């Protein structure tokens, strides 16, 4: 293992940062998911308050805008009783010319315990984890087109809850896999969980050229790609894909790849439909499917809070043990 995958683990294989799902073992992912489930009440909602991070300071460093991810990290930190500071860097010192490195050193001096980082440059959380003092945990909340590991973990949690062990499942990811950090992290996570059949479905302009290397089969036709799958993961389509001539129109995308009740029939009965949100109705998904019984999109959001609580608790606990 190299780079982010290596840096996030201690020599004993414990999680001290979460930078990527690449290289995470099935045992470690399972431990994370079990911890996350322990934060859910018997009604399936995240517990309102746990004292695990009392006296700890969590700093949300969002160099790129985000509402949902940031909110769920906020809620997760509060539920663990941490003090939370949220810095919207676009409006703070970075726009006055301070470098990321100097911003970081300043925050370090304020005795933070955990950084949650979202950045438009792939590798930025790795850079931060590499440069901060050893006892600060770094959680990647999305970096460029590289990784979004907490999203992948909440997806795995949702899959496991509804369909069981991914080692027995077929999973199809539909849409803009090429530009998606969500897709990359989910693929690595599924591979870690020994999922035997991972597929990517989309036109040539939206699929990366080296899927084989990731252990993923590429399909351009959705009827072939969905045949017999247990899990369908839809990705959000950005408007800029049309202006950069990767796609003709949203309408054409929906006509070829939009998830409709008819298309759902290609998959295995009872297959679940997931989406990292926010969904575009009539582009990636029809109203009927979005509001239908097979969609588990809102469940993903709920699981997101529990997963982020688990990741925070685990990384801070590892860091504490490293200090003592």
């Amino acid at each position: 293992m190299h780079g982010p995958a290596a840096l996030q683990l201690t020599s004993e294989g414990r999680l001290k940062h979460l930078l990527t799902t690449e290289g995470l073992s099935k045992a470690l992912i399972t431990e994370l998911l079990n911890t996350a489930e322990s934060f859910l009440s018997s009604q399936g909602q995240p517990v309102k308050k746990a004292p695990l991070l009392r006296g700890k300071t969590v700093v949300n460093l969002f160099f790129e805008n985000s509402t949902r991810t940031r909110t769920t990290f906020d809620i997760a930190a509060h539920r663990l009783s941490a003090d939370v500071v949220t810095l919207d860097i676009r409006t703070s010192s970075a726009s006055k010319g301070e470098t990321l490195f100097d911003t970081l050193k300043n925050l370090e001096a304020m005795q933070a315990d955990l950084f949650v980082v979202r950045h438009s440059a792939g590798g930025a959380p790795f850079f931060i984890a590499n440069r901060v003092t050893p006892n600060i945990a770094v959680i990647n909340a999305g970096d460029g087109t590289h990784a979004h590991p907490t999203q992948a973990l909440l997806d795995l949690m949702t899959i496991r809850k509804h369909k069981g062990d991914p080692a027995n499942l077929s999973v199809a990811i539909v849409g803009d896999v090429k530009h998606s950090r969500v897709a990359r992290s989910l693929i690595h996570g599924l591979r870690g969980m020994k999922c035997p059949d991972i597929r990517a479905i989309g036109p040539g302009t939206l699929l990366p050229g080296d899927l084989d290397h990731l252990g993923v089969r590429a399909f351009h036709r959705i009827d072939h790609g969905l045949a017999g799958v247990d899990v369908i993961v839809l990705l959000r389509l950005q408007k800029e894909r049309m202006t950069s001539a990767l796609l003709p129109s949203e309408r054409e995308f929906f006509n070829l790849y939009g998830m409709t009740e008819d298309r759902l029939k290609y998959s295995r009965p009872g297959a679940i439909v997931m989406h990292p949100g926010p969904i575009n109705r009539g582009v990636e998904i029809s109203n009927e499917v979005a509001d239908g019984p097979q969609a588990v999109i809102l469940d993903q959001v709920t699981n997101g809070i529990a997963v982020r609580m688990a990741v925070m608790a685990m990384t801070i606990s590892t860091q504490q043990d490293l200090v003592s």
Partner: protein
Amino acid sequence: MSLLIEHIKIHSPGGPLNNQTAIGIDQGLFVDPNRLQSPDRLDGKGQHLIPGLIDLRAHLREPGLEHKGTIGSETLAAVRGGITTVLAMPNTDPVIDSPAAVRLVLERAEKIGFCRVLPTAMLTLGGKGLQLSEMAALVDAGCVALAQGSRPFGSQKIEYHALKYAKSLGVTVILDPEAPDFAGGCAHAGYVGTGLGLPLNSPLSEVLGLGTDLELIEATGVRAHISRLTTATAVDRIREAKARGLPISCDVSLAHLLYTETALVNLDPVFHLERPLRTEADRKALINGLIDGTIDAIVTDHTPHESGAKLAPFPETETGMSIIEATLNLLLTLDQNDELPFDISLQAMTGNPAKLFQKPGFGQIAFGLSADCVLYDSTKPTHIDSSHWISAGHNSPIFGQELPGTITGVWVAGKQVQN
């Protein structure tokens, strides 16, 4: 004062003195040792003597970028790498696009430089790719070639005019093939860059750019040197173009001979280069291109930076590596790894570049030629230690490594500049 270097093995492939065991230096020239009268004597103790290396692409940073390096620091670093002649790239601040700037570089080199500095200048004013620079005046002032410093031309038509004008003056142009539409990205569009989520650069960027360059070279007949090939396809296109008789030569950078896209796995910004590291198949094709003569020269593309330039997430760092100081050691490394025979890499950094830029006085050890040479011990490795690094740029991937060969003396025009 004359000097006799004896008990050496002269390594100057194809030259008249190859394998001789002694050489004389007098009045700045190589001379017959038997003609020296009571010279100083240097016992080479069985070491190798090679012609001083010629680097057709390095950034010496003056004027304007002295915080990254100076002609003083970078030419001393060059000499420590066995280099006695450097083509200085024109993308300084301001860029070299006026006779005064060319003269400034020459004067600084004369005053504080340790090796020969051959200035290049911009083909277009400000390097902006829009208006032609005063090429005749630039050549008069002493620039040896005109380049665009890897900046794009405003249009294909402007490139065509620049090449046509250069042709009418008989000037050599240096081109960095890149299709503007495909430019950008900091990693090769392969599995490593994709996996790391880095902005990608397709090989098409180089191949399409080269296609345009070759057509315009053919149309204008200009003498052109294509700099920094990175892809196997480009090597094929150059091979075909040379077979057609186009007046071209080309080079490859040391980094592209040594490393591939897999060097990026740790996101070390040292490997963030202007032209990305590509696949192992590309690297092999570049080496084979040198072996079969398609590629004429090896360049260092030495690009020193201050530490802050690399202190950011990978895609946001500045491009380039500081590597000139270990040039000879790295050529010997490629030989030791059975990848590129030293005879070929030596030719690609001596005889070939000397010929390309009509400097027949350098690049060879022969009586009557300028005494530019390097004495080195092939049995003693050099430990590359950042605390002994002379270049102002510490953006180097080789710190802590032990590389073959130790340079014990460098002479430029008969004057010892390094021992």
